[in-house]
């Protein structure tokens, strides 16, 4: 069925090495999102799984069989393209039928499958229209419909929402998630949008420059980023990164010095650090809180009020490092206001500045799954 296993996959276009030793396994029925900045190789990886690109080396298995030499059609996959790639000269019905006709399905079976997919996606009224007569959202659904009628082992989505406007994107996101819950087929979804990744995925694969940075469930990756890149990539606004040092290691664990004498407890593994070690501290904007004492002095520059929440932009008073602080509700500090802020307990991430890797935590038990390659 829809298991996928990639082993030491490499891809080079001429001298340009675009994928490095990719290992990944996907369980049947899983919703996996490949996410990363543009040029990270996520689309190439998807196209390799689809059979649209050859691998330079490595092995691809779908449902336990090696599909490396098989054509896309023989891999039992279906794909939804970024531009939808609907055949512009064919009606919606013919678009849906084309693949099944090529596979020599019986007419009655083709009609039944089209009817079923059209019902599921609510595109029955458009079946005899041409793609150009449809709105963006309708085209999107037809593109998904074309994949559904094939009843594939794996669905592949290549940034399918990037051509939709913001409101439609949220709606379609939910529809795809619901579709997945309904048909329970393996889906692999490529996007550069971390919100899509966070909201849809059972499992996220973060790629950068042709390498897998981290694999795990959305919250694992959010709470326990393996390195600075993952930490910065997930979450919006980005995680604040400030220079810091290990203040000391006591019986209750290590403490970290954020400057201004703000020394706070942190839950790094005391064995992994030594006092005075220079580190980078990462704190998400939402994980700051205002404190009466013991906080870090922060000077407000300006703020953005979104009604239900407020983002305060400013800098640390001493080092001038820029910081974003998230506040719930209304909050209107005038420019130049000095505030004392501190990370919420357990929400401070500590990274090694040279390797950019997260420094191990005390509660190592929770790091399950947050390891490269799963």
């Amino acid at each position, binding site marked *: 069925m829809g298991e996928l296993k990639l082993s030491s996959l490499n891809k080079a276009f001429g001298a340009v090495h675009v994928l490095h030793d990719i290992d990944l396994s996907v369980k049947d029925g899983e919703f996996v999102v490949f996410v990363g900045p543009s040029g990270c190789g996520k689309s190439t990886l998807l*196209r390799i799984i*689809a*059979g*649209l690109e050859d691998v330079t080396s490595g092995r691809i298995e779908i449902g336990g069989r090696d599909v490396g030499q098989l*054509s*896309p*059609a023989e891999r039992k*996959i*279906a*794909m939804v*393209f*970024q*531009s939808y*790639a*609907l*055949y*512009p*000269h064919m009606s919606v019905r013919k678009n849906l039928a*084309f*693949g099944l006709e*090529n*596979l020599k399905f019986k007419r009655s079976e083709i009609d039944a499958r089209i009817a079923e997919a059209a019902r599921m996606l609510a595109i029955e009224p458009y079946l005899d229209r041409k793609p150009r007569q449809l709105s963006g959202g309708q085209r999107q659904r037809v593109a998904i419909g*074309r994949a559904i009628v*094939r009843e594939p082992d794996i669905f592949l989505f290549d940034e399918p929402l990037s051509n939709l406007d913001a409101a439609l994107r949220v709606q379609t996101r939910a529809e795809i998630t619901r579709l997945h819950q309904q048909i329970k087929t393996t889906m692999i979804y490529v996007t550069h949008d971390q919100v899509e990744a966070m909201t849809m995925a059972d499992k996220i694969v973060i790629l950068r420059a042709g390498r897998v940075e981290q694999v795990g469930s959305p919250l694992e990756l959010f709470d326990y980023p393996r390195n600075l890149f993952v930490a910065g990539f997930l979450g919006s606004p980005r995680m604040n990164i400030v220079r810091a040092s290990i203040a000391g290691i006591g019986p209750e664990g290590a403490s970290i010095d954020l400057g201004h004498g703000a020394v706070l407890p942190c839950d790094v593994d005391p064995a992994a650090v030594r006092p005075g070690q220079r580190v980078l501290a990462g704190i998400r904007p939402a994980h700051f809180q205002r404190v009466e004492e013991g906080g870090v002095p922060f000077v407000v520059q300006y703020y953005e009020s979104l009604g239900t929440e407020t983002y305060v932009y400013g800098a640390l008073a001493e080092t001038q490092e820029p910081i974003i602080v998230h506040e719930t509700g209304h909050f209107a500090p005038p420019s130049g206001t000095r505030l004392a802020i501190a990370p919420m307990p357990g929400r401070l991430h500590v990274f090694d500045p040279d390797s950019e890797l997260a420094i191990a935590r005390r509660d190592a038990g929770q790091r399950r799954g947050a390891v490269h390659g799963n």
Partner: protein
Amino acid sequence: MAGTINPVAFLGRTRRRGRIDITDILSWLWLIGGTIAVLVPVVWAGLSSMKPEAEITRFPPSLLPRTTQQVVVPGYDRPLGLWTVTIDGESREMAMVRRIGIKAQMVDPENPAAPVSVDARTISPVQKLTIATENYSDPLERFNFLTYLKNSVFVTVVATILTLIVNAMAAFALSKYRFRGDKAVFVLIISTLMIPLTVVMVPAYMVIVGVGLVDNLWGVIIPTVASPTGVFLLRQYMLTIPDELIEAARVDAASEFRIFWRIVLPLTAPALAVLAIFSVLWRWNDFLWPLIVLSSRENFTLQIGLNAFQGEFSVQWHYILAMTFLSLLPVTVVFLFLQKYITTGIAGTGMK
């Protein structure tokens, strides 16, 4: 809509409203003069092609195809020409019996018994508008013109179909695949644009001899099928078809050939139409190559037939012009309907 345009406003509608200067007048003179220059020889040939044999060489020529009206008068074997005669200040129509010098002997068709003699310089023939359809029907029946027509249609249709298929296939390969030598092949094909037929016609004929297609319509068709212009035009168009469509079709289990005819060909329809129009024009009008390849009369195309025809019947202009007009007609009709398409197509591709 055209009917509602006020002619004065129409002529006055130039670049600057309300002011007509000398350049506007010169422009209009140029355009109208040019239009007349284009039309006059064509229309003149058309009008002449409808004149009967006796009328066509008359000098100075009459503008419209007319014949002298004739009447059968009792007592005379041949039909007599009808003339307008003025006798005693009264204008009458009389038949001419004979003419001697400046005197003409006329009879009244109503009263043939009493011929009168009148000054031949004062009479003028009674003419009426007639179209000499025999100019068209005779060559079609007596000469091989139907055969020429049939050959021309055959060459045009078959060559156009083959041109579309062969060049579309090559353009597909050159636009949608990356393969070893793709650039070299493209350059090779485009470089043949530089070699006009006139340069290789002698050895090309020898190749035709070699493959046994001399004096055969296929010998006219096949050498012109692979067209660098066609490949180039179609390739440029196919490059605009998104690659994702082709990949989608591959995921949809279509064979490469099926992708070609079910996806790429329908989407290339506009460019194929342009190439088809040009191909039809090339073949229909082609002269030098068929002239070299074809030698026997039953294989002549219309153009070659027309050329041979004028050599043989150098004085029979009524036939020649009728056939000329017949061969010009399809092109004119096509142009009337597809004018916009053709001119924009040519402006866009720079070919003809």
